[in-house]
């Protein structure tokens, strides 16, 4: 029961935030790829930076261990990312925003998107042995971080990442007179 409630609560907050950021709308996604609306980048970069600092601070305090880690298998991560991005440009959504877009009443997300994502899951399952496993042979999965791979302290990477986010913040929020692109302004 506790697991059910935590899964539900996690989803509620996650869905609420995606909707409030507006990423449940087609134009927010496609206009990121057109460099007309930077909402998607702002949302992702701030989430990553806060989480990165939080997790590694807790780790250094001994309150947390880096146990579950998305595996690195370069060929698959890149090829999959390319396919994923192509689909994202066509539909203007991702797995998280198809659910939350459906929640705000987008019927194209609910019906066509829902069917498409389940079909995509089946397609992956159907080609798992013939396509995915041979692909893994090209670059076997490893649970790596930049720190363990390059033997450099994690705060160096976090500092570089924070600097990149600061530059991005300056470019999008301070350098422009109003801080927002035309597409972002018309959304208010």
């Amino acid at each position: 029961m506790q697991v059910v409630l935590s899964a539900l609560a996690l989803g509620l907050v996650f869905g609420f935030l995606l909707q409030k950021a507006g990423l449940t709308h087609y134009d927010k996604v496609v206009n990121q790829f057109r460099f007309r609306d930077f909402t998607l980048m702002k949302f992702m970069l701030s989430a990553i930076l806060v989480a990165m600092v939080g997790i590694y601070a807790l780790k250094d305090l001994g309150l947390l261990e880096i146990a579950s880690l998305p595996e690195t298998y370069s060929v698959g991560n890149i090829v999959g990312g390319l396919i994923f991005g192509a689909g994202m440009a066509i539909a203007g959504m991702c797995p998280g925003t198809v659910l939350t877009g459906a929640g705000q009443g987008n019927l194209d997300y609910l019906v066509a998107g829902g069917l498409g994502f389940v079909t995509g899951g089946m397609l992956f399952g159907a080609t798992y042995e013939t396509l995915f496993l041979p692909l893994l042979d090209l670059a076997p999965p490893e649970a790596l971080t930049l720190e363990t791979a390059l033997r450099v302290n994690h705060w160096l990477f976090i500092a570089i990442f924070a600097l990149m986010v600061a530059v991005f913040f300056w470019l999008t929020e301070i350098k422009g007179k109003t801080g927002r692109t035309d597409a972002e302004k018309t959304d208010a």
Partner: protein
Amino acid sequence: MFREKRWSPWVAGSLLGVLAVANYALANRILSVSGGFEDLASLLATTLHLPLADSIFFSLVVPPQISFHLIQFAGMFLGALVASLLSGDFKLRLLPDKEWVDNFGPSRAKRWVLVFMGSVIIQFGAGIAGGCTSGLGISGTMLLAPSGLLFIVACFAAGILVTRLLYGRRY
């Protein structure tokens, strides 16, 4: 505040970051979504008695079950429903409010076919990559996993290129 239509993406994103830390520290889980569609596919293949249900993937790797992801899915749907009802952004839509009609015309069939195709491609890509925008892009990168960075760069490169192709002179 809850009635506002849009929150600054910096604020909403930072709060998602806090959620990601809490989820990792308390439950040792990363935020992820795409795996849930594999659970759904497995459930459907089994329910419909498809031969696919006996494959290694759907019997061993992702056996059919009401998973954590699927309960999280219900929460995500409800979270967006509540957020949009509070702000008045909720509306039954057959087409996106902006950009789509200007570029692709008012055909609903065209939109729905393209959404279906795009969704198949997205989920297939997430399977190959080992995650999606949240499971790899955010969760991988927050842990400094190279997989997250590789995924984000590849995803944006293809997204920009395909959008250019689709929008042509309107890009």
